[in-house]
């Protein structure tokens, strides 16, 4: 299994600003994923982050808006840039460990943009 810590757990931000969310895993993992969960909706994959390479973004998500870093096998960040109220969501970090073939999730970051 994997234990994932996300910071911050919640934040209220002004529109036009940026927020960086951190995801720390207690073991080395190959794949890290970032999801968005808009109010009352399901999870939507934003991007997949491999260590040492650029993130792969899903349709509808772009690097300029959601830049991702993956400096090592236990850490990743997601930045929500130039925020608007439509970015108010829960952002979740997830990992898949090689042996488990299942996804583990952080507790999420609840973002409110005012």
């Amino acid at each position, binding site marked *: 299994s994997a234990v*994932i810590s996300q910071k911050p757990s919640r934040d209220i931000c002004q529109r036009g600003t940026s927020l960086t969310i951190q995801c720390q895993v207690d073991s080395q993992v190959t*794949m890290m994923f970032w999801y968005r969960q808009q109010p009352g909706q*399901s999870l939507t994959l934003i991007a*997949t982050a491999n260590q040492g390479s650029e993130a792969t973004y899903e349709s509808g998500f772009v690097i300029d808006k959601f830049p991702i870093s993956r400096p090592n096998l236990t850490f990743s960040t997601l930045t929500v840039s130039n925020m608007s109220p439509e970015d108010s969501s829960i952002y979740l970090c997830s990992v898949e460990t090689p042996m488990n073939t299942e*996804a583990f999730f*952080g507790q999420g970051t609840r973002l409110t943009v005012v």
Partner: protein
Amino acid sequence: AQSVTQPDIHITVSEGASLELRCNYSYGATPYLFWYVQSPGQGLQLLLKYFSGDTLVQGIKGFEAEFKRSQSSFNLRKPSVHWSDAAEYFCAVGARGSGTYKYIFGTGTRLKVLA
């Protein structure tokens, strides 16, 4: 295209009653199927998963799910619900590609438990 449908947005049951949450999927091959639970303010916790073999899968907290290929379903069941089961439940299919999974989630079912 792969998709997951959870037809019930909200379900309310009395404590001690049985529970069944429905999940239907669309996937071209044998799917990897998951049920996750999300309590308020928490991340997602895996309840159970199906990859192959016995189509009745046992999970944590007394939950089980049955894979029915003919119906493209993977319904979650519990014989007796506890108040602590109140949460949101997500069905997901894992589509393997490029060496890893891409998880596709259903829209979720919010469970309310009456005392």
